[in-house]
């Protein structure tokens, strides 16, 4: 038996060389994806002298935690970190509640005016006013520079409503009918039957939403100019891209400032450290959600 399958497999295999090339190419792509961040990690752990002279490639040279220790004392970073966690929690929580409620309404076969509601949802998916009218509206509503400017426009997503609705559609209608006979109203049916059964799709949406909030900066850069409410990514932009935060000034004590050379080294080091500290939560979490990605993407594409 094994001899037969082996022979069959060899036919499909073609040449060993092709196999080797495929494995090498795939490995190379994996390397390209991981290495830049790994490189930043080992730079952040190496001593500044080794980091600046480009001697670090595969593993940290020296062991240096000073950068991380200093970062712990940086208030601006932690304020923006706290803000981002708050935004992620608020937007994701609201999105799950608002979208699953709307989706339940659409999933009931006895809903009146379904056609109108479908068009109501469809129009904004194809046409949008763009960023300027939204900006003017936010200003006019008095939300400018408040956390609500991010949270409220981010509290719904029509696409998610449709995703949840199509998931609800796979739940047997007899479950709903049985609950109705027992005298349960719609709120009760949604909370005790539909939501518990729909955990997979809700998990996908929660993950997408959290990642989106965690990594987003564009809308915040327009709506939140007051730095007390700015999310993590805007702080990162100032440090990494605009380079308007002089990390050396911020992190070094006066004695250390005297050593000008060291000062420059320390500032580069801090950048690497900040990249690691800000990206770590997402990097640690995503592999555990992998099994959900395919589900979410497929459900999305089927309806397109």
């Amino acid at each position, binding site marked *: 038996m094994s001899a037969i399958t082996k022979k069959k497999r060899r036919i499909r295999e073609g040449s060993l060389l092709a196999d080797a090339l495929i494995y090498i190419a795939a490995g190379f792509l994996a390397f390209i*994806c991981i290495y830049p961040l790994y490189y930043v990690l080992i730079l952040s752990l190496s001593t500044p002298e080794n980091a600046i002279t480009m001697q670090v490639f595969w593993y940290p040279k020296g062991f240096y935690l000073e950068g991380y220790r200093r970062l712990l004392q940086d208030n601006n970073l932690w304020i923006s970190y706290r803000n981002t966690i708050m935004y992620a929690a608020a937007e994701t929580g609201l999105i799950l509640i608002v979208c699953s409620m709307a989706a339940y309404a659409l999933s009931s076969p006895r809903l009146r005016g379904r056609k109108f509601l479908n068009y109501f949802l469809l129009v904004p998916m194809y046409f949008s006013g763009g960023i300027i009218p939204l900006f003017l509206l936010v200003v006019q509503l008095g939300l400018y520079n408040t956390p609500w400017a991010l949270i*409220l426009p981010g509290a719904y997503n029509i696409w998610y409503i449709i995703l949840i609705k199509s998931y609800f559609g796979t739940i047997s209608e007899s479950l709903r009918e049985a609950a109705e006979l027992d005298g349960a109203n719609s709120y009760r049916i949604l909370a005790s039957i539909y939501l518990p059964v729909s955990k997979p799709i809700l998990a996908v949406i929660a993950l997408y939403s959290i990642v989106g909030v965690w*990594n987003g900066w564009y809308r915040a850069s327009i709506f939140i100019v007051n730095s007390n409410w700015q999310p993590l990514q805007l702080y990162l932009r100032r440090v990494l891209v605009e380079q308007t935060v002089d990390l050396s000034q911020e992190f070094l004590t006066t004695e250390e400032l005297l050593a000008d050379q060291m000062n420059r080294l320390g500032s580069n080091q801090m950048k690497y450290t900040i990249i690691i500290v800000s990206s770590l939560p997402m990097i640690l979490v995503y592999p555990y959600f992998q099994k959900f990605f395919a589900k979410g993407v497929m459900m999305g594409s089927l309806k397109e």
Partner: protein
Amino acid sequence: MMRKEAAKERRTRRSRYVFRENVELYSLFFPAALLIVIFSYIPLWGLVIAFQDYLAGNSIFALNETVKWVGLKHFRRFVSSIYFGRLIGNTLRLSVLDLLFGFTMPIIFALLLNEVRSLKYKKFVQTASYLPHFISTVVAAGMMLSFLEMGGVVNSLAGALGISPKEYIAYPDYYPAIYTITNVWKGFGFSSILYFSTISSIDPVLYESAKIDGATRWQQIKHITLPGIRFIIAVQLVLQVGKVLNTNTDLALLLYRPSTYSTSDVIGTYIYREGISGGKYSYTTAIGLFMSVIGFILTFVTNRISNKLTGYGMW
């Protein structure tokens, strides 16, 4: 007689129930409806300022005598401005690069990985390829900038080969490559999920019988795998072409700078600069509207073409 009345009562009970249920359903739909009206429909209405000389501080609902209607003035001004050609050219250049690499890379990657038979290795490569998606655009751009610095890793490697160091990010010639590489790096792994799942839903019997007929690996890809994902490729292509005028503004805003505007300034960044920072609200709203109309037409036309050529499309 009795039976008739009982049936009638059942019906009224039923319709009363349906009414009560609909009240509940609409109350559930209400929060979403409210948010959608405020944050999707009102900005849509706000597009009218493209046909006005909008005064900062004025209400975007104002339709009274304070509103100065100017017709197509802003559209004409944009089309005849010196920026028009440059912005369209830059946007199209970056979009074409994205079609050439950003669109094809996920397909090639999925086909490649499908040929890897070790499940563990496949899983590892896949997980690794998702990583850049979970790194923020700011960090990706920041890493790119720091690698390209005068004292960065790219220049020190080039220095070892005898190439004199350069501030790559400041030269317009290098910008399209830098932008495209960052963009593709960030997206190809995650975008390949779609193709992956589609490939895995192809009936394995097809491969079995092809193998029995002696099909080579290449023939199997060409005659089974590719036709199996043709539909998804067509739909994605239609979507992508519809978006040729919206490049990744997020990333562009982080990577571009005044010295590279000649290749890096795109429609999205121009709107951001002139509109949000410069306060030319009516003018930039007009540009945005102009672009989304063209985008819609493009989606429509490519969908038609795709329907004709492959039999697949979005609608």
